[in-house]
Structures are given as structure tokens and as C-alpha cells.
């Protein structure tokens, strides 16, 4: 990667969450490999702040804008404005279906919920013989569509099992100690909780702390969380966490890099199967433009050390190449 092909802006919704922080470094790494500079703007989970950032960035005329929207669809007008100004927009991690964009690379939050449901099914069966029992679902902020989608996916699949009772409580603003309090209270109110499903690994950390304080040992209560952050993997190694539903951060980022040339030069992206860091991924033409879907994976004690998981903080050594 000799001379720079230009600057790309990444609008990240927040940095208070390890997945997002990870995405910044991953995107930066891969884009560099295909010859792009990347600058990042943090919206602090404020939709209106992100809109201002879009307006300002448009004034800077970058090669492209990578947008991880604070709210999936609220940025529609800004996206339209950017593309009207001739700046291609890539949706990263958070899908925008309301308006066309030049490329979309997401794991699919609803799908994460589905995978989680499959795992929960297996865990409960293993523990109670059949799929029944109590699940405490610790959501993120109830105003955040990201957590709501996971909940949607999880619950629509769990509907199949009537004798599974799900208690859902929100950890306001994704704050860890809120999750801790919820677990501490629920474990007393419903001592028969079989599984705790937190929508982010850092919430599981606080949950574990509360369990510990309540005198529980690893394994007494099953835990599961989503997004595959390093903390989650550590908890698996310690035996506290049974499953971590990983979001393929590296692959998602790599995909963006692979197609950046095409996006920047406004060439069309062909549907079909692509190999992204060894993960088989599908590009489809959707109403909102070319869309690559990369399957998420379930991390358990068995495969926890697989370096492909971004949670292991081992960026892939093989460099990505632009798709010709």
C-alpha cells in the first residue's frame, strides 16, 4: 500500500463499549492495507450529534463515509444528503434499510438474538433435561434499538418453548453496576434462575461480581452474553460464562476494506459468495443496496482460543486485498 488513496471518515456511535472501540482499530488497520486514511468521529450515542457530524464531514468531501448509526434509521436524511453531495456511504454494524446506501456490512442484530436462542435452548436442555426453566435477560439501554433487536430475535425464537420463563430488565445506559444490581436483586427474588443472558459482555462482568458476592460459584448459574468482547472470553476461560455470541468484528471490518475501492470509485458490487478472513460470506442486492452478511458464531470453552474471534485481540496477520 504505497501512496494514500484518500481519507475515509468513520462515524462511530460511542466508544464506551469495547466492540465499537475494537471496530475503530480494525477498520483503521484494514483500510490502511488497501490504502485509505481513516478518521473517526464519536457521537456519544447522540443522534443529533451524529447528524451534525455528518453535515460537517460532508463539508470536508472525504472519499467515503463509514456510518455506524446511533439510531438505525434516524440518519436517513444525513445519508441522503451525503450521497447527494457525491460522497458514498457505507453502513457498518448497524443496518439502515430506510434509504439506499453504497455498501452495508453488518452481522445482523436480530440474527445474534437467534444464535443466542439456539444456545439457550441447548444449555437448558443440558441442564433440565428438557427445554424449560427461567432466563434473566439483562438488556442494554431500553432506548437503544441495538439491544431491542437482539431481544426481538431471542424472544421470537424462544417462543417455541412455553415452559421457559424470560425475565427482561434494562441496564440503563449500558451501565455495568446497573446490571450488577439487577442480578443481585433477581437472584434473591427468583433463586431458581437457570440462565442469565446479558446483551453485552461487560454487563456479564458485573453480573458475575454480584453472583460472587451472593456466594455463588462458577457453574451454579449459567451465563451467556453477546458481542464477544475480550472480557466475555476471559469469563468463559474462568468457567463463569457458558456462551458468548460473537459478532464477527474483524470480518465485518475487513469486508468494508475489501470493497472500499469499488465504493469509493462508485463501481457496482456483484452479488455472490466471498471469502472474508476465511469466513464464508454472502453479498446480496437488497432494497438498500449491496449488503454483505457474515455469520456470527457462538464461543464456548471448546473454541474460545480461536484467534479469529476479535475478543482475543489478535488482528489477522494475512492482509486483506481489494476485490477486483
Amino acid at each position, binding site marked *: 500500500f504505497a501512496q494514500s488513496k484518500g481519507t475515509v471518515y468513520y462515524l462511530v456511535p460511542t466508544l464506551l463499549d469495547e466492540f465499537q472501540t475494537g471496530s475503530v482499530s480494525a477498520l483503521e488497520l484494514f483500510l490502511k492495507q488497501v490504502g485509505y486514511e481513516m478518521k473517526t468521529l464519536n457521537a456519544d450515542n447522540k443522534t*443529533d450529534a451524529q447528524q451534525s457530524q455528518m453535515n460537517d464531514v460532508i463539508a470536508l468531501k472525504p472519499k467515503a463515509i463509514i456510518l455506524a448509526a446511533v439510531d438505525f*434509521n434516524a440518519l436517513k*436524511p444525513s445519508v441522503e444528503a451525503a450521497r447527494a453531495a457525491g460522497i458514498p456511504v457505507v453502513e457498518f454494524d448497524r443496518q439502515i434499510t*430506510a434509504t439506499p446506501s453504497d455498501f452495508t456490512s453488518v452481522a445482523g442484530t436480530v440474527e445474534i438474538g437467534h444464535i443466542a436462542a439456539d444456545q439457550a435452548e441447548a444449555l437448558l436442555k443440558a441442564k433440565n433435561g428438557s427445554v424449560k426453566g427461567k432466563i434473566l435477560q439483562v438488556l442494554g439501554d431500553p*432506548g437503544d*434499538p441495538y439491544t431491542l433487536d437482539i431481544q426481538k430475535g431471542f424472544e421470537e425464537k424462544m417462543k417455541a418453548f412455553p415452559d421457559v420463563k424470560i425475565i427482561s430488565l434494562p441496564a440503563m445506559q449500558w451501565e455495568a453496576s446497573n446490571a450488577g444490581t439487577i442480578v443481585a436483586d433477581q437472584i434473591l427474588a427468583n433463586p431458581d434462575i437457570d440462565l442469565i443472558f446479558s446483551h453485552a459482555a461487560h454487563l456479564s462482568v458485573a453480573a458475575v461480581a454480584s453472583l460472587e458476592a451472593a456466594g455463588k460459584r462458577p457453574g451454579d448459574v449459567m451465563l451467556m452474553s453477546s458481542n464477544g468482547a475480550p472480557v466475555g472470553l476471559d469469563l468463559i476461560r474462568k468457567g463463569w460464562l457458558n456462551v458468548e455470541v460473537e459478532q464477527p468484528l474483524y470480518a465485518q471490518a475487513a469486508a468494508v476494506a475489501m470493497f472500499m475501492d469499488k465504493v469509493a470509485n462508485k463501481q457496482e458490487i456483484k452479488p455472490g459468495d466471498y471469502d472474508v478472513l476465511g469466513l464464508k460470506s454472502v453479498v446480496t442486492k437488497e432494497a438498500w443496496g449491496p449488503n454483505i452478511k457474515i455469520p456470527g458464531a457462538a464461543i464456548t470453552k471448546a473454541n474460545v482460543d480461536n484467534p479469529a474471534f476479535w475478543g482475543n485481540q489478535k488482528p489477522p496477520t494475512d492482509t486483506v486485498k481489494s476485490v477486483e
Partner: protein
Amino acid sequence: MSPRTRHSLELVLDNLVWFMLVFVLAVFSIFIPNFFQLGIFANIIEASSVLGVMSIGLALVIIAGHMDLSVESVAALSAMAVGIMFCSSGIGLGLQLHPDWLMVPVSLAIAVAVGAVIGVANGFLIVRLQMSAFIITLASYIWVRGLVLVVSGGRSAQDLAPAIRWFGIQRLAGLPLTAWIAVACFVVFSLILAKTPFGRHLVMIGGNETATFRAGIRVNRNLIIAFVLAGAIAGLAGWLLAIRTSGATANLGVGLLFNAFAAVVIGGVSLKGGVGTLPGVYAGVLLLSAINTAINLMGLPANFTQVIHGLLVLAAVLLDAFKQTIRQRLA
């Protein structure tokens, strides 16, 4: 020193925040690439319109010696109300009115009404039950935002009816109409505060409530009006927010409250009440907006931005500290 120089100096001090604004803009224009262009200045004003309108209402109650923490949530609720009714996708119901332009007054009325209602609730509890405005409006801040979650189910509405969106797109002298609305609000309320008995009474109530009460001013009535105004104006801010977003999200406007307070205080309004003017507040709003834009353009590592932001706000305020020292000199 000669009376004239003294006089002009007093003038500068009284409007220091405006000079700060000019100063800051100059500095940014010099040191930040791409900052100095009309588009950016337009952005600064455009981005400040919601915050600006909201700050007006907040400033009014603070000058009257109280405060209203609920404005942020109220704006969000109004935005959500408008969004749900007049958005065509997401959780929007896509309500249609004919002729189209009818949607403008209707949506506006709804937004303002929502705000006014909550303002009445706040005002009543605070004035009649003599509760601390802080705690009452803090509660509102929480439950009103909660209400937004309830009505929206945490989901969002998009595609606001074009007739309403028009205000956000149509430009006049380079600025979208929403910005002009904010400016108009500042002009109107500045006049009300400075030139009408009502405004005068608010200031005096903020200065010495007992005195005004003894003088036969209907303090309670004035205060309730102030809270209703704050709510209604917040509603208007919400309407603008909805236009800007072309819809509404459950956590829309989160964080505006702190900026509004910062703007009001930087603008020279005393939280003890009785002191402050609205033009100053607008300068404060623009100052904060300028800082935000500057940070967006500086392109520094994302996790440093917040520190920078805080320190810049601090710097802006510190400039204000000179005021005191210079005044000392004068005296």
C-alpha cells in the same frame, strides 16, 4: 481613565460572550483546516437551532430564580409525538392532512401543547406545593423520557411528511428555515424579557421573591407562566429536532440538557436568578456549537475528543473570568 473609554470598556464587558465568540471563531478559522468556509458557519448556526430554542425557555425560568431540568425530555417527547403522527415509516402512523401545509401548524401545535402541558404540571407542583424546582423537574426529566420509551417502545419513526421537513431543507440566505425560527425566537423573547412588565417582573422575582410578593406582584401566576413557557418552548425545540432528524428516536436529544445549561451560564445568566439577558445566551449557544464543529473538523483520535471538548468549554468560561478582574480595575 476618561469616561468615554470607561464607557466603551463597560460595553465590551457587558457583551463579553459575543467577543469571546468572535475570538474563538477567528482562532478556529486560522488553525483548523477547512473551518473557514460559509458552509461550516452555516452548519454552526443550523446545528445550534435546537439547543438555542431550548436554552431560551431554560434561561427564562433560571432568571426567575428557578430551573427546569425537564426541557430535554420534553423536547424528546414532543419530537416523538410529531414523529409518530406524521412519519410514514418506522413506528410512524403516516397521518395525512389536506392541504399538506395544514400539517405544519397542526404538528407545531401538538409539539408546543405537549410541552406546555408538562410545563403546567411542573409549575403547579413547584409553585403551589412550594417544592424545589430542581427535584420536581428532575423527576419530570426521568418520567417524561420514560414516557418517550413507552410510546415508542424504544423504536424510532422516520420519513417525516415533506411538508414539515421543508423547514429543514428550504434555505434562506444560506440558512435553513429552522435556524431562522431559532433566531426569531431569540429576538421575540429578548424583547419580552427586556421591555414588557412581565419580563421585568420575572427578573425582579428572580432577584428578591419576597419583595415582589410584598409589592403585590402575582408571583405564583408569573412563575407558572414561566414554567409553561419553558415547556412550550422545549416543545418547539422538539419540533425542530424532529424536522432535523426527519423523525424521532427514543434517545433523541440525550445530552442536550447539559449543553443548554452550559450555554445559559456561559451566556451570563446567574443560576442564583435575577441576572442575565437572552442575546448573551444565544452567543453562548453559538459558542458551544462552534466548539463542537471545530472538534469534528480537527480530526483527532476519537477517544480524545471528549477531553478536548471539556477543556475548550472550560477555556471559554475562563475567558469570562477576566471580566471580574477587569471590572476590579475599573472600580
